[in-house]
């Protein structure tokens, strides 16, 4: 096999599982180290570069980073990455003077952004400081999009949201509230150089079963949450049924409890292993005594004189094979569950009634716009989509990343350069060696378990709708939690020329992820020499160049390495080094000028 090309920035990036899994590629271990040093503002700013809303995301991010965390390979629980992000936000000083200022002059280019949610704000965040005149159109009287309307205030306080939105507005962004865009064709005529659609996926799915039309106490989850967020709804019946077990369902059931419901049942069609909600959101709901019933498939709504009295469900039994797949199902009975209200939380679609179908934007057979996965441009030049509006419902952190990418495209569009000519990521490696067995990161393995988040007590939390439930980590808690991070971005960098094949690294490695082996044709043959040789999907095998004394090669299974640095400590010739990898991702302001332009 050929030696691994570690110069490809993706190689080491992939080793940092959390950063690789984060859509916006937040440099997680780096900000955790800053927290460990008490540099909260620096940690916040580093977060902000990638994810723009650290305070918001430190509470309500979907956390794709956590299941990816390397820690789960030696322990049950990942590092509490999301909570540590909140620590950075909670403990930061006033950072306003570190943010980009409103530029003195603009570049004359006008950008229209539709929908004041995370995607549009990210575009504005990237473009406004560069001189672009950004105007955001918002149909509601307050900004935030789904961060406001769909995430209840007991999970995300309004002040946190407004502060981070405020940072962007202060860069000179014009926010037009109560200004729905009702026609795309109209917008074309307003003289904008580019248009960005960040309107989310605002249409909740309905459930047309018997009795649906006969009663008014059936609510669509996201619409209902929205009316609560905007104070149009402030109560609900005592007995509430939620249909669906996604994160929206969890927000609906917990909100119901705060609006007077006494008895809330969440109805799931399938067993627990198939739930869509994040495990922590399920946990938080169950802590509040929400009752989740599995294997109940909705059949009809029951009503008397136009008043909802209950719902009938079919009881389903499933055949599940060894791989956990459903291979068969059978209806084994029916149950009537009485209730006063039903909330439907079974998914949402994006809807664009305001885009004329002859506006030059192609829609596919599902009636969603055709959007390029790299540039986020629609089939009409200069019109871009991002966030849930682009590819259907994802989450906030994806919306942020779409915003960054769309901003790059908008910039290139306005400069008249090729949208595909995007500056690739770069990685720089800096040795962390400070002396004999001394590194500038805390390399010793700390076996502490994940810290538990404290919650507001059960009585107090239901008294006001906007009492934040999570209290944030205490100083003691986060001091421990930061040490759980394995510093995956401090890479084991190997220089074959220096190796004298003494095997010291192999012997000391606590997870036996190294071996010196003869050349072989395939990865499987090389792996056979490792004590745990199975390949884990997505995890690479490092293959070195030839070792000088025997012509053999060093291999390393990236999957289990703990980045403890013992290989480098035991290496007599410093063939192994622990080097911090700093990934440079180029947002709109860091795009290299196109070659043609540079030549002029």
């Amino acid at each position, binding site marked *: 096999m050929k030696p691994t090309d570690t110069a490809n920035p993706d190689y080491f990036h992939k080793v940092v599982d959390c950063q690789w899994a984060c859509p916006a590629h937040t440099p997680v271990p780096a900000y955790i180290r800053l927290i460990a040093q008490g540099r909260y503002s620096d940690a916040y700013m580093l977060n902000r570069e990638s994810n723009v809303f650290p305070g918001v995301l430190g509470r309500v991010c979907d956390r794709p980073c956590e299941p990816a965390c390397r820690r789960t390979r030696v322990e049950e629980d990942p590092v509490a990455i999301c909570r540590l992000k909140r620590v950075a936000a909670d403990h930061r000083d006033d950072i306003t003077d570190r943010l980009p200022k409103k530029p003195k002059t603009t570049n004359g280019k006008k950008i229209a952004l539709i929908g004041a949610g995370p995607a549009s704000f990210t575009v504005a965040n990237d473009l406004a400081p560069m001189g672009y005149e950004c105007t955001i159109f918002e149909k509601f009287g307050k900004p935030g999009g789904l961060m406001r309307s769909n995430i209840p205030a007991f999970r995300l306080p309004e002040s946190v949201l407004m502060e981070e939105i405020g940072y962007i507005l202060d860069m000179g962004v014009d926010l037009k509230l109560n200004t729905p865009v009702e026609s795309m064709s109209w917008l074309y005529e307003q003289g904008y150089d580019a248009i960005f659609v960040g309107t989310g996926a605002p249409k909740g799915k309905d459930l047309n079963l018997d009795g649906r039309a006969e009663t008014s106490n059936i609510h669509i989850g996201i619409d209902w949450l929205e009316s609560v967020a905007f104070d149009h709804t402030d109560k609900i019946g005592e007995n509430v049924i939620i249909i669906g077990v996604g994160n929206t369902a969890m927000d609906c059931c917990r909100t119901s409890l705060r609006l007077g419901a006494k008895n809330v049942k969440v109805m799931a069609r399938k067993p627990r292993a198939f739930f869509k909600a994040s495990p922590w959101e399920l946990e938080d709901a169950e802590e509040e005594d929400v009752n989740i019933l599995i294997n109940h498939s909705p059949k009809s709504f029951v009503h008397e004189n136009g008043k909802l009295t209950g719902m009938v469900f079919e009881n389903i039994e499933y055949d599940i094979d060894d791989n956990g797949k459903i291979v068969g199902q059978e209806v084994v009975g029916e149950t009537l569950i009485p209730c006063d209200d039903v909330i439907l939380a079974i998914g949402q679609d994006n809807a664009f009634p305001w885009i004329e179908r002859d506006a030059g934007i192609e829609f596919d057979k599902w009636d969603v716009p055709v959007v390029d996965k790299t540039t986020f441009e629609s089939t009409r030049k200069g019109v871009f989509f991002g966030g849930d509006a682009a590819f259907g419902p994802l989450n906030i952190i994806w919306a942020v990343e779409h915003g960054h990418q769309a901003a790059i495209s908008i910039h290139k569009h306005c400069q008249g350069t090729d949208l595909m000519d995007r500056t690739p990521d770069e990685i720089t490696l800096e040795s962390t060696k400070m002396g004999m067995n001394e590194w500038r990161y805390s390399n010793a393995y700390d076996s502490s378990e994940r810290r538990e988040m404290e919650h507001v007590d059960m009585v107090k939390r239901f008294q006001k709708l906007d009492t934040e439930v999570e209290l944030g980590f205490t100083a003691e808690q986060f001091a421990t939690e930061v040490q759980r991070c394995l510093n995956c971005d401090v890479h084991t960098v190997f220089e074959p020329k220096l190796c004298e094949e003494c095997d010291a690294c192999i012997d000391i490695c606590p997870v036996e992820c190294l071996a010196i082996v003869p050349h072989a044709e395939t990865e499987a043959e090389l792996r056979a020499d490792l004590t745990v040789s199975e390949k884990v999907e997505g995890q690479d095998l490092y293959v070195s160049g030839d070792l000088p004394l025997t012509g053999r090669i060093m291999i390393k299974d990236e999957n289990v390495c703990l980045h403890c640095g013992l290989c480098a400590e*035991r290496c007599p010739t410093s063939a192994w080094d622990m080097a911090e990898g700093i990934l440079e991702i180029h947002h709109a302001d860091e795009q290299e000028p196109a070659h043609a332009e540079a030549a002029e």
Partner: protein
Amino acid sequence: MSSFIKPKIRRKNEPVNDLGLIRSDYDGAMSTLCAGCGHDSVTAAMGRAFFELSIEPHRAVKVSGIGCSSKTTSYFLKEAHGNNTVHGRMPSVATGAFAANADLTYIGVSGDGDSLSIGVGQLIHAMRRNVNMLYVLENNGVYGLTKGQFSAAADIGSTAKKGAVNQLPPIDPVALAMSVGASFVARGFSGDREQLVPLIKAGLMHKGFGLIDVISPCVSFNDHKGSTKSYEHTYKYYHKSVHADYVPPSKEIKAAYDDGKTMDVELHDGGTIRLRKTDKDYDPTNREHAMKRIMASGGSDEVLTGLLFIDEQQPDLHQRKNMEDRPLNEIPYAELNPGAAALKELQKGFR
């Protein structure tokens, strides 16, 4: 030394042995040797061999003398019995321990200084007696612990780190062992675990004295140009002659002698040592033949390795001296100490 102790981690799919133990259950204290010392690799190989043989750590005895090599008994099998003896006196302590309890697995770890200078007499007599133990001689050509003086294993003409040239002829532990009747004689290299781990396993399962001379470079004092015990020199002149795999009794053995390269030696426990030979004509069961080959290689740069000689028929110390089979600690006190009258009776016979 490292800045922190190697953590004990249990991976998903961690391999376990027949006792349900994992490899790190056979580790010891953290090594304090120089980074890159060959001895650490030998330690790892010994730990792995005990792990793979599923020997209960508390049924093993580790004995050693003085030197960096002798320190390493601390670094594996922390639950085993052990004794760091006076310089060069490990063989007699081992002999005594073995006499008292022949049921345990004995491993001696020593260096070329400890074994070939101050302790050479002890070593020779343990070999003659065929004490049932494996003796691992970690050979780096110097006294590492006392900062690199030539040992009796240093080759003529090899130089010390500061340039002094060795003038005295070396003692080759392998040739020495052959000449005094040792029943298992091998050479290995700390850099070749593929060969060393099976050799250690075979040596532990062999009944009688096993010697493995392991070339184990001293990175601090004998790893320079001019040294004949450096990594570079050893890798360059390394020759694998006879590979030995221990096959436990339960495993079926398919014999394939016809190629002249494979040979089986049956052991007392019913297991087998399967020999795979690079040199087709070499017969490691023939002492005279083996000695010739060893002597021929002695004059050259060649580092001849593998299981060079094995004689499974030789009675060990216990058999030869018709000694008590039961461990002394299992014999009732009255039997062990029959009293003054019995002693008097015995003494009468000497008058």
